[in-house]
């Protein structure tokens, strides 16, 4: 009889999209999860009692419109591949909420964490933010949930950060290679959240060459305490694997063993694959480690062939740097400075201007974001956005916990926007009344 049995029921939604690619030689291509599937099947992961494989859901346009302002339209950015990828994340979320599994892992592509609140096209291989689409679908169904998103992808999860910048009920923590050395160039320790959500965004920019020791130190001494204090109902791990020592487009030195241990410490309920492009030498082993760790099984024998810990060990300088960084970030997260950077108060509104570049689609976007700073609720959000492709558009979001004043203000902004006549498209996300409207000018 099999002595192998998962200590925690794990549902795996595995969707490698074998018939889809951004382009034939792009890192995001059909081949990406091929060897991972081979490895997991050869290891017999799906035969282990307690580990089951599931088919993804297909997200609907309404799921996307609940989260994003897609300009000029949703159909242009959310193709079937993106809807299935988000659907994979949703299925994983449902498995946990419906108690069909204790934990779930959506190994899906394409990724999503570079997709921001406003979407004009593809950015960093991402079109829609698959974690946000999942989280908001669960909130729509199950009511207000406190959620923590721990983004351990090598790149700063700027999209997820943007989506949840003003949301005090979502704790966003991103661990990544320092933005001064890598795309997207953001994710610094002083980025701590909007005026209504201070301290619920936490960034840990790590130096190139950080290896297992550094990552695990951060996990134990920063992430774990932050999660324990925040007390989320759900922890979601954006589990990008491009921090692997063999990844071709980054400079970190993480290993499969290390990632398995990190997974253990973070203890996410739902993990969602993000980046990771060392598809032969890293992904098969890292994903095996994550699966075994989430299922509560022994992962001590998981290793890349020819792995030599000495060759990837981080130097003392990095070790010291990471320690100091954790202390600094901890202090900032506990006591975020009230004075906001990169924006100014205009009356009761906090206004930021942003310029965003969509590298995958070569679009530049110009945004003016305004938040009605409210003592009683997270506040209503207005975004005016135009890009090299699309004329000026307006998005208005009323949060779930909106107070009556902000709710009314949001409706007014939507109606006013139509009267002004200067917007090509206006979208309303009214989470309180669950209405999602679009107006074409």
């Amino acid at each position: 009889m099999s002595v192998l049995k998962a200590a925690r029921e794990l549902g795996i939604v595995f969707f490698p999209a074998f018939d889809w690619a951004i382009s034939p030689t792009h890192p995001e291509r059909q081949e990406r999860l091929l060897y991972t599937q081979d490895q997991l099947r050869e290891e017999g992961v799906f035969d282990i009692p307690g580990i089951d494989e599931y088919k993804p859901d297909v997200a609907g346009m309404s799921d996307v419109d609940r989260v994003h302002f897609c300009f000029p339209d949703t159909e242009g950015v959310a193709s079937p591949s993106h809807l299935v990828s988000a659907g994979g994340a949703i299925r994983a979320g449902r498995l946990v909420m419906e108690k069909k599994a204790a934990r779930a892992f959506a190994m899906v592509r394409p990724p999503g964490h570079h997709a921001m609140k406003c979407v004009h096209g593809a950015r960093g291989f991402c079109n829609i933010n698959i974690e946000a689409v999942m989280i908001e679908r669960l909130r729509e169904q199950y009511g207000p949930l406190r959620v923590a998103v721990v983004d351990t992808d090598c790149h700063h999860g700027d999209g997820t950060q943007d989506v949840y910048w003003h949301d005090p009920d979502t704790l966003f923590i991103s661990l990544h290679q320092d933005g001064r050395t890598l795309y997207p160039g953001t994710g610094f320790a002083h980025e701590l959240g909007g005026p209504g959500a201070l301290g619920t965004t936490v960034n840990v920019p790590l130096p190139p060459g950080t290896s297992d020791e550094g990552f695990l130190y951060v996990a134990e001494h920063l992430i774990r305490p932050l999660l324990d204090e925040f007390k989320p109902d759900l922890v979601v791990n954006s589990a990008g694997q491009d921090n692997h020592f063999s990844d071709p487009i980054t400079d970190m030195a993480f290993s499969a063993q290390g990632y398995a241990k990190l997974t253990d410490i973070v203890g996410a309920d739902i993990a969602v694959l993000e980046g990771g492009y060392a598809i032969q030498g890293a992904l098969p082993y890292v994903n095996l480690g994550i699966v075994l760790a989430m299922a509560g099984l022994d992962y001590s024998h998981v290793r890349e062939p020819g792995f030599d810990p000495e060759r990837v060990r981080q130097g003392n300088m990095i070790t010291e740097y990471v320690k100091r960084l954790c202390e600094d970030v901890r202090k900032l997260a506990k006591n975020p400075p009230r004075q906001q950077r990169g924006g100014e108060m205009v009356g009761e509104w906090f206004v930021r201007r942003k310029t965003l570049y969509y590298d995958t689609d070569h679009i530049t976007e110009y945004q003016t974001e305004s938040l009605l700073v409210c003592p009683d609720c997270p506040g209503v959000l207005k975004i005016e956005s135009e890009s090299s492709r699309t004329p000026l558009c307006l998005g208005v979001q009323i949060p779930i916990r909106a107070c009556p004043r902000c709710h009314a203000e949001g409706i007014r902004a939507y109606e006013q926007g139509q009267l002004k006549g200067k917007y090509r498209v206006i979208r309303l996300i009214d989470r309180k009344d669950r209405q999602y409207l679009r107006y074409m000018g």
Partner: protein
Amino acid sequence: MGARIRHGPVSKDETTKAPGLVPFVTARPDGRRLGERMLLGIDVGGTHTDAVLVGRDGIVAMAKIRTNQDNLLASVKDALESIVSVAGPEGITRLNLSTTLSTNAIVEGATEPVGVFVSAGPGIDPELYRVGDHYFTAPGCIDHRGAETAPLDEAAVARGIEACREAGVGVFAAVSKFSTRNPVHENRIKELVHARAEYVAMGHEFSGRLGFSRRINTAYYNSAVWRLFNRFADAVQKSVFSLGLRPQIGVLKADGGTMPLSASRLSPVQSILSGPAASVMGIIAICDIREDAVILDIGGTTTDMAVFAESSPLIEREGIAISGRPTLVRALRVKSIGVGGDSAIRVTPQGVTVGPRRLGPSMAFGGGHPTLVDALNVQNVIAFGDVAASYRGMAALAEGTGHDPETLADFAIASAVNRIREEVAGFVREINDRPVYTISEMLEGRRIAPAKVYVMGGPALALSGLLQDAFSQEVVVPENFAVANAVGAALARPTFSVELFADTARGGMVIPSLGVHREVGPDYDLPQAEAEASGKLREYLRFIKAGDQEAPVETVERSSFNMVEDATFTGRNIRVVCQVRPGVLPQYREAVTCPC
């Protein structure tokens, strides 16, 4: 159309264990045509051994004998002699045999000790896949591309061989991870044990599919029953010959297909769990099933369900499990639930339940606890065995519940029927919800929608009315299901699956289950691979004398992935799976088809 089949003095209830059941044989009164080619199917089951001889115009002869559990060979001989005695040896061109020999040996632990040599490398600890008492792991690793990333530690293998020598182990299994990409470590282990071995099974020979622990189990079980099965095969061949029969002999597999006896000698593990498949194939032939359908077999302890879709029964994707261990042996996708004729009835606060426990035979047949069959007796749907005993048992159970025995029986029957209906619905949902890996399959994948439910087994007729009420599909109970298993065996045709794997960057192509491998150049592409896989499969089928009409080849998986390194195309990673699906020989199908 099919000849009328006469039944001998036996009830259709397969759960009957009435004493005094005599073996019987019938034959068609009119003579058969000279030179006719007839097919003989023998299914050695747990309780009975059934044999059927099928000619072009119908069933020529039948036999039903009690199985001698201690001597399956004797049962086979008896069945052969019975058929030959009424129908003569001439014209019997094919004999297909389904037996529980290997299954019983494995389940009862009556197998031979096997020296299992495993080389895995990192990943899940291979100790966790330990099977048998002589299991040795040796360092060594092949990666998913088939590259050797750590050499085989031959000294470790040698130590294991020595231990086996001391223990007197004579048969072996050699299995390495990813041997289906590169069998070099398995080949080397075989070379090293060869001098000591009467037989060595190598994992990659059984299938090109992935699944390390499945491969270990498959190779282990194969070696464990090799000697037993080969002795049986020898004896069967002798018996057949001595009776003047000269048929092609085939062995039935769990996927409802056959393999030649010669092939089964090397791969006896493929003969496990063939019984349910025989019945399913038989029903498909008798009822001439062509549309999506569910097939139920209500037995004594369990109800087994299978699905028919797109002109053949559905195959289990990964392979069947035996004794709790998964293998790579292809099988029909069958779901088994604990509701059967002998399932014990219980009264709980939530209501009346039937099964999953079986606490002995029905009270109508001397048991001590009321069963579904007893409930059917009490409700007057059937009259099997001692009906008064059924009533007494139900009355005793009803005491204190506030219900009379008839009502309790009614609840029990309803509970069983509802449970079956729910499980069938769940089974179809599971099948339709199976994981797929391409966007086009996600959006356009075909869903199975059974139009009919075919039911066989002892209580089938008795329950048919109620099942019809419970199901929205048409419920059909074929008249002749009692012979379905032997008919299925007789009419089954060869099946085989080949998995081809090619990596043009590494320059190699391999078809593990046929032992084919060769170098390929950078121009090797998917169309070439598909032609080669199907071509080799056809060659193999010709080799085992299965013609194109009997064994149509189809491609079920074809993919070619561009391998890219540093934004440069380096080669193609090609996977092709060709197979022959289970089916019934078309020329004889009409002979057995009856209006259902």
